[in-house]
């Protein structure tokens, strides 16, 4: 008769280790959706909460540094976790990542974090830096496969040229996206020759897709960038915390390109307009000069005419005076001219307007 092998006997800690090994093999990382309950932070470092649904509940553990967004009781979340049996025999989930799930939870988390960062002054207008008017060297963080990136590059190329564009290809949605974007921000900020603008873009998406840009460490990385930032995420109606913390916010990736560089066609139009305005200006000035010369000539002619008129009036006046002095005019009024010695017995000549009379002087009486 064959002897049956003796059963394997574990120590308690060995058994716990084997169970954990089995968990790791079977569920290295699992994603679970549930509602947060009994959320608490111990010693400012360790986070404990229960993840539950209507029929079950699991203990969860994580550190505060793993929290990328504010979490509260009642919030629906998706956790990435590893199941674990503790040395005290308690089953729990060790959380690797946690994010709000569903519109209500995402909105709630967004508002809590927004208030917190706003209180810290991260969105203050006085923090905002200006972008260079025409940048020569820019850094872009985006997924090069995304439609938003293609829109940005198209508009950039249509509007302007001569820009050195360095693109960091990153994931722009999903669990690893915030860390990838943060690494890209750090990469560009550590360059010896810093880009003049750091552009972060992605096209539209669901609230869950865009929640990458509400990640607290990412928002803080944008705020801490040495390079001025331009963020264009989602559509015009979408607002993320990354938008709010950026130095300049663009409504869309296309709008980011419009903000970043001037439109060369507008400049060509302006240059043509400026040049076109010069010839009429020269012609107008020639016309002004011609008019001034014409006015001066008219003035001279006018002055001559006035002088002639004055002379004519003087002559006319003198003629009138002369006419008054004409002896014939006096004779015509009935006076007479007497010539000869006016003494008794002398013959004198009397001239009237019509006759010349010889007469003898009969008497002379002195007045």
């Amino acid at each position, binding site marked *: 008769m064959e002897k049956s092998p003796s059963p394997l006997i574990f120590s308690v800690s060995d058994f716990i280790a084997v169970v954990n090994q089995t968990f790791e093999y079977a569920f290295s990382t699992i994603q679970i959706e549930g509602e947060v309950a009994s959320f608490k932070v111990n010693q400012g470092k360790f986070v404990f909460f229960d993840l539950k649904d209507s029929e079950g509940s699991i203990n969860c553990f994580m550190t505060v540094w793993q929290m990328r967004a504010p979490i509260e009781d009642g919030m629906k979340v998706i956790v990435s976790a590893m199941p674990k049996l503790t040395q005290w025999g308690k089953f729990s989930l060790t959380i690797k990542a946690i994010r709000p799930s569903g519109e209500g939870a995402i909105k709630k988390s967004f508002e809590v974090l927004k208030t917190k960062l706003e209180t810290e002054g991260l969105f203050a207008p006085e923090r905002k830096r200006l972008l260079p008017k*025409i940048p020569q060297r820019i850094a872009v963080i985006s997924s*090069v496969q995304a439609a938003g990136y293609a829109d940005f*590059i198209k508009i*950039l*190329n249509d509007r*302007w*040229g*001569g*820009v*050195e*564009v*360095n*693109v*960091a*290809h*990153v*994931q722009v949605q999903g669990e*690893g996206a915030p860390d*990838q*974007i943060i*690494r*890209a921000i750090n*990469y560009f900020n550590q360059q010896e020759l810093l880009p003049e603008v750091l552009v972060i873009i992605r096209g539209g998406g669901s609230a869950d897709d865009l929640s990458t840009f509400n990640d607290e460490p990412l928002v803080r990385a944008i705020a801490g960038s040495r390079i001025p930032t331009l963020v264009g995420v989602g559509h015009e109606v979408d607002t993320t915390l990354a938008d709010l913390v950026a130095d300049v916010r663009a409504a869309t990736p296309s709008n980011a390109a419009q903000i970043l560089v001037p439109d*060369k066609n507008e*400049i*060509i139009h302006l*240059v*043509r307009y*400026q*040049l076109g*305005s*010069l*010839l009429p*200006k*020269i012609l107008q*000035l*020639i016309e002004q*000069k011609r008019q001034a010369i014409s006015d001066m000539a008219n003035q001279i002619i006018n002055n001559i005419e006035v002088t002639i008129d004055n002379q004519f009036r003087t002559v006319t006046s003198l003629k009138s005076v002369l006419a008054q002095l004409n002896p014939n005019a006096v004779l015509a009024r009935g006076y007479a001219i007497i010539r000869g010695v006016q003494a008794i017995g002398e013959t004198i000549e009397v001239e009237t307007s019509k006759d010349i009379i010889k007469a003898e002087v009969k008497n002379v009486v002195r007045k």
Partner: protein
Amino acid sequence: MSLENKTISEKTAELTKLVEWFDGEDFSLEAALDKYKEAEKLATDIEKDLKSLKNDIQIVKQKFDAEN
């Protein structure tokens, strides 16, 4: 600096200055023709430069999916 070595911004600034000269107190009809020719050359150059410039787009080789 010759015109060829100037950037678009420098040429645009120069053109603006020339246009301002036509409105300024230094304007004289005698100098206007030369200034106009200068402005015309600048405008042609700016337009040519703008049309010929291409952006240089490079994808960074560094991977960002994990700490390096």
